């Protein structure tokens, strides 16, 4: 026995001994117990750290104790076990702190902490188990040690929970035992080996192996809560919060999942398992579990139960990743061990905090709790977003790998499952977040306890914050050597024998300004968490956009490569990016200045500002990102932050708009996720620069079109836009319509096979998609005019105008897809158009806020230029930026007769809309009373933007190609006649338009919502049906265990009573005597 063979044992003992000592302590020795607890946890962690460094240096740690002939108790550290023990050790420490705070002054603490330590010991044992038998031993031990924790409270509910828990786990343990023994008789010692034990044993019957596999998975599936073996998990919620946290995040469910990974990879061997066809079944079960758990979670009002069902769903990601059986999916599954642990423990901590501090147990009681407990709810929100799969929280990373892995293994349907699960996750988490932050509180909390200056006891507050930070860090630093993902990569490499790891690159920061552009608003937003800074925030916000502006203006070459961030983050500024960054910087700058004045009297200006800055940061980031992860991360950041902007006013309308917005955002995220996963797989890299045209297939293009189409307001995915843009405060509307929708366009430009050189044949298959996009875009361009022109609210009208303009851009992109030959010219044209539209639309929105000034404009009619110039530019008045953009588009799409032919028609429509807009503004301005007092500080930003609208487009290098075409006399005429025609039309139809009833904003979504109500009723009915079926299936199980054997045993009892007399036993004796004699006679 030397050091390296003792270390695993010592890790185990460090928690075991702690538990033993604590067990012997008297209840009153509080300080000593706390000290011991922390000491034990820290010691374990330290030993784990020693081991990790040792393994890193190539040492082998193995404790081997003989147990039975040909069977040893083996504790060994490999990559997979290190991952798990590190997680366990870390979360133990955190949970210990939490539990100390949580259980203050409650009885039986020595018992609790004793078993708590035992439980950790068992988990560590599971992690370190070097063969199936050792694993089994600790697995059973875990059952035993968690039971006292589950029933700790001693209430009837918890006792029942304990019984159910035992019933399930004991059955599972028994199945596992049979499987292990059987396997052992066939295959010997069952030491975990990287490529599986069984692959090298062809002589074993396949049917047997299949049955054994089923037994093992069923046994492990109980703890991993695979449907239909998950019934214990929600019931076990009766346990105290730290126990739930530990049960769900680390110990129990993870033990099951971990076991599944071990069995599939290290016992069967992934290749072999797939050959046997075993992984299909497992992945199917996992998929069903994922979806079913989520559906059940939807129906729960009890917060902890909802989280429990969420666990049911989430843990199966691990099984799914394992079963998909590709190296990347393995990474996803394994890393989800860690990620889910971090996030779920956070959620449970938070739920515990709510219950402990405010007495809140139900989702329905959560209204407005975000104000009372901001830190807790912030942690909750982040973790929940991670669960949904929002980057950059850790959950995204695992989903990412799972998706890519599924593609790699040709299991496309998994994407569907992931998408469905994400949607469902959102459906049950977002209402919580929404209620906590945005709904007003309903009077008193059920049981409010005060803890001085903090919102709750510091020991309760610290752990969730730490785990959230870790979850966030795990997602952000996915590419770092010591991140869970890299670790999982190591595991996956070992398991599948494939090289997937990247070389570790040195950090390259060639263009620090790019980072500054992103970080400036982000840091400011974070700083604004402090109340004192928050008040200053509006004043500071504009300056945060300056680095971006500088970056867009100044020439800078090269890329920032941060391999440890995400999956190797790359930031760069290419031509496309530069245009978008310029647009973004200008708009955000102007909007920020505008907001300073606009929100001067708003009580919540600080909050607005935080969201504003976050969205800004996301927007800059997505423009700069040159890798998919960066792109989607910032894209998500922007989308989510924009939610805060949309609902800022808090009116019913705003809330409804926010809801619609969020639904579509989530949908878009899911679609994009699927698309990206597929893309990364087929391209082999997440780096956009290496994205060849041949990486795509029809599905990817379809997903990209739909995913970005939502953001870009592509008909019929546009419905959120006319609702969300108008209700937001004016500066927010400006950036929403001006630049944020352009993110969709940018996405297309970046990820569609656009502007890339490629063979003609590859593109042939994209033509259909291109045609679709073209048709939808043009339809949108025209229909939006029809709907927009009857609007009364100028902002809604502008939103429809945006849809119309984006339709044109979409159609252009579609044209590019149809005919790749167009692309070299089309790309700069698109950029020009985007810049022009963004600036003009932004200014138009800002101008809406100037109404009071305009109304009082008697003395300065010149202010109308702020309204008229962008309006005319949009309409395409010759020599304006609009004329240039349109000419460019026409030139570029010269071969695309449909587009070229319809462009003037859209110009007519745009003119109509703009005429209507100016008319509306004019009408409003005339009715002075409605306009209110003019606010100071609004004019300046508009004036700042005005020259940009006028000339910025001409300054672009891309403009040079087209300026000649735009300034040619024919072009001038071509630009003029639609304008004139439009004005004429408006003049003719003005009376009708003024009388017409406005189509409700969101047009078709109204119909959808009507249908939705019906669907919801149906769903509720279906849910009830499912629930009753569930009771039918499982209700029966708990009854005989709980109510006990009252009926079944009566006959037996009578039998026994009768046997108490002598007669029957005597007879029995005789019978036995005769039988024995009979059978002994051969």
């Amino acid at each position: 026995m030397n050091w390296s063979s003792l270390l695993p044992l010592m890790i185990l003992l460090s928690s075991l001994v702690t538990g033993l000592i604590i067990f012997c302590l008297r209840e009153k020795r509080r300080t000593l117990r706390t000290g011991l607890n922390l000491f034990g946890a820290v010691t374990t962690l330290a030993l784990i750290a020693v081991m990790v460094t040792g393994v890193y240096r190539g040492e082998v740690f193995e404790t081997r104790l003989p147990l039975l002939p040909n069977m040893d108790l083996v504790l060994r550290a490999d990559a997979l076990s290190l991952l798990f023990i590190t997680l366990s050790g870390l979360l133990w420490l955190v949970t210990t702190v939490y539990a100390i705070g949580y259980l203050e002054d409650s009885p039986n603490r020595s018992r609790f902490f004793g078993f708590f330590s035992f439980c950790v010991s068992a988990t560590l044992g599971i992690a370190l188990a070097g063969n199936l038998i050792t694993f089994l031993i600790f697995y059973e031990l875990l059952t035993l040690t968690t039971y006292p924790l589950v029933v700790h409270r001693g209430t009837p509910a918890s006792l029942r929970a304990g019984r159910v828990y035992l019933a399930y786990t004991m059955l599972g343990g028994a199945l596992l035992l049979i499987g292990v023994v059987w396997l052992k008789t066939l295959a010997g010692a069952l030491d975990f080996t990287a490529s599986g034990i069984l692959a090298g044993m062809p002589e074993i019957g396949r049917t047997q192996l299949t049955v054994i596999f089923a037994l093992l998975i069923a046994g492990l599936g109980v703890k991993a809560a695979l449907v239909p073996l998950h019934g214990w998990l929600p019931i076990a919620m009766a346990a105290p919060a730290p126990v739930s946290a530990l049960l769900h995040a680390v110990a129990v469910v993870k033990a099951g999942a971990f076991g599944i990974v071990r069995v599939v990879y290290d016992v069967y061997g992934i290749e072999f398992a797939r050959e046997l066809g075993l992984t299909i079944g497992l992945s199917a079960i996992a998929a069903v579990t994922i979806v079913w758990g989520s559906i059940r979670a939807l129906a729960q009002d009890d917060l902890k139960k909802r989280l429990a069902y969420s666990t049911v769903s989430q843990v199966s990601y691990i099984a799914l990743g394992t079963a998909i059986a590709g190296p990347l999916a393995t990474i996803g599954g394994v890393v989800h061990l860690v990620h889910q642990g971090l996030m779920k423990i956070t959620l449970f901590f938070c739920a515990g905090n709510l219950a402990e501090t405010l007495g809140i147990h139900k989702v329905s009681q959560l209204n407005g709790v975000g104000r009372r407990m901001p830190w807790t709810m912030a942690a909750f929100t982040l973790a929940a977003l991670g669960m949904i799969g929002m980057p950059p929280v850790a959950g995204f990373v695992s989903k990412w790998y799972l998706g890519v892995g599924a593609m790699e293994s040709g299991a496309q349907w998994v994407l569907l499952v992931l998408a469905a699960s994400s949607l469902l996750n959102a459906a049950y988490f977002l209402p919580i977040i929404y209620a906590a932050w945005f709904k007003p509180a309903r009077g008193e909390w059920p049981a409010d306890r005060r803890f001085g200056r903090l919102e709750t006891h510091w020991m309760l507050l610290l752990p969730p914050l730490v785990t959230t930070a870790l979850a966030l860090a795990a997602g952000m630093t996915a590419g770092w050597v010591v991140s869970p993902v890299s670790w999982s990569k190591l595991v996956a490499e070992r398991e599948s024998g494939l090289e997937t790891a990247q070389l570790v690159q040195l950090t390259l920061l060639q263009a620090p300004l790019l980072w500054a552009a992103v970080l400036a608003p982000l840091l400011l937003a974070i700083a604004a968490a402090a109340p004192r800074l928050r008040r200053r925030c509006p004043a500071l916000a504009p300056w945060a956009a300056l680095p971006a502006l500088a970056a867009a203006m100044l020439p800078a070459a090269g890329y920032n490569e941060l391999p440890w961030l995400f999956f190797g983050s790359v930031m760069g500024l290419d031509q496309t990016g530069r245009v978008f960054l310029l647009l973004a910087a200008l708009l955000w700058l102007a909007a920020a200045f505008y907001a300073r004045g606009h929100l001067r009297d708003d009580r919540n200006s600080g909050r607005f500002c935080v969201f504003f800055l976050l969205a800004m940061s996301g927007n800059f980031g997505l423009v700069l990102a040159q890798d998919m992860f960066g792109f989607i991360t910032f894209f998500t950041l922007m989308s989510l932050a924009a939610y805060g902007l949309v609902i800022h006013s808090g009116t019913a309308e705003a809330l409804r708009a926010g809801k619609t917005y969020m639904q579509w955002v989530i949908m878009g995220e899911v679609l994009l996720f699927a698309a990206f996963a597929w893309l990364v797989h087929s391209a082999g890299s997440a780096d956009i620069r290496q994205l060849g045209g041949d990486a795509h297939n029809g599905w990817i293009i379809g997903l990209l079109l739909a995913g970005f189409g939502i953001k870009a307001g592509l008909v019929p995915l546009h419905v959120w836009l006319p609702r969300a843009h108008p209700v937001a405060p004016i500066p927010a509307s400006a950036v929403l319509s001006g630049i944020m929708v352009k993110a969709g366009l940018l996405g297309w430009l970046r990820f569609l096979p656009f502007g890339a050189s490629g063979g003609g044949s590859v593109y042939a298959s994209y033509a259909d998609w291109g045609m679709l996009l073209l048709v939808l875009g043009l339809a949108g361009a025209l229909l939006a005019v029809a709907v927009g022109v009857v609007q009364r609210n100028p902002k809604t009208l502008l939103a429809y105008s945006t849809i119309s303009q984006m339709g044109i851009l979409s159609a252009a992109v579609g044209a590019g897809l149809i005919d790749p030959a167009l692309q070299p010219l089309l790309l700069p044209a698109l950029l020009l158009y985007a810049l022009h539209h963004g600036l003009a639309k932004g200014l138009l929105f800002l101008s809406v806020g100037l109404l009071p000034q305009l109304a009082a404009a008697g003395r300065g009619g010149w202010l109308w230029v702020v309204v008229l110039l962008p309006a005319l530019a949009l309409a395409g008045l010759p020599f304006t930026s609009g004329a240039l953009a349109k000419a460019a588009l026409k030139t570029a799409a010269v071969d695309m007769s449909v587009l070229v032919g319809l462009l003037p028609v859209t110009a007519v429509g745009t003119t109509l809309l703009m005429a209507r807009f100016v008319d509306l503004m004019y009408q409003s301005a005339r009715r002075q009373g409605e306009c209110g007092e003019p606010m100071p500080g609004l004019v300046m930003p508009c004036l700042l933007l005005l020259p940009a609208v006028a000339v910025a487009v001409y300054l672009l290098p891309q403009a040079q190609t087209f300026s000649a075409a735009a300034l040619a006399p024919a072009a001038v005429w071509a630009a003029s006649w639609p304008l004139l025609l439009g004005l004429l039309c408006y003049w003719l139809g003005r009376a009708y338009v003024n009388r017409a009833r406005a189509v409700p904003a969101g047009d078709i979504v109204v119909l959808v919502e009507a249908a939705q109500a019906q669907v919801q009723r149906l769903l509720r009915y279906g849910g009830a049906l499912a629930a009753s079926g569930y009771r039918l299936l499982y209700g029966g199980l708990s009854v005989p265990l709980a109510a006990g054997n009252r009926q079944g045993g009566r006959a037996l009892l009578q039998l026994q009573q009768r046997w108490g007399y002598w007669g029957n036993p005597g007879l029995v004796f005789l019978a036995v005597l005769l039988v024995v004699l009979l059978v002994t006679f051969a």
Partner: protein
Amino acid sequence: MTQDLIYSVCGIALFGIGLYGLIIVPHILQKILAVNIMGVGVFMLLVAAGHNPGGVSDPVPHAMVLTGIVVAVAGTALALSLVCRIGELQRDGADEEAAP
């Protein structure tokens, strides 16, 4: 039929009779006696097995029977003393029930 065979058959028959008594006869004293009868049957069989017509008979079964008798006496005595104590307790119990 030789002499030892007669004894053997009788021994087995006695065993059967004892068994019948033990199982069927309700009274506890009779049961105890039945056990003794069974014992006697076995002893007879043993002694018969040691019978050596025409020669010295085998002393080992004799010794075994002697030992067996003592054991049987001990068992019987213990059983009887238990019966006595049970009877005593039952009588006390009956008294207590009757008293109030």
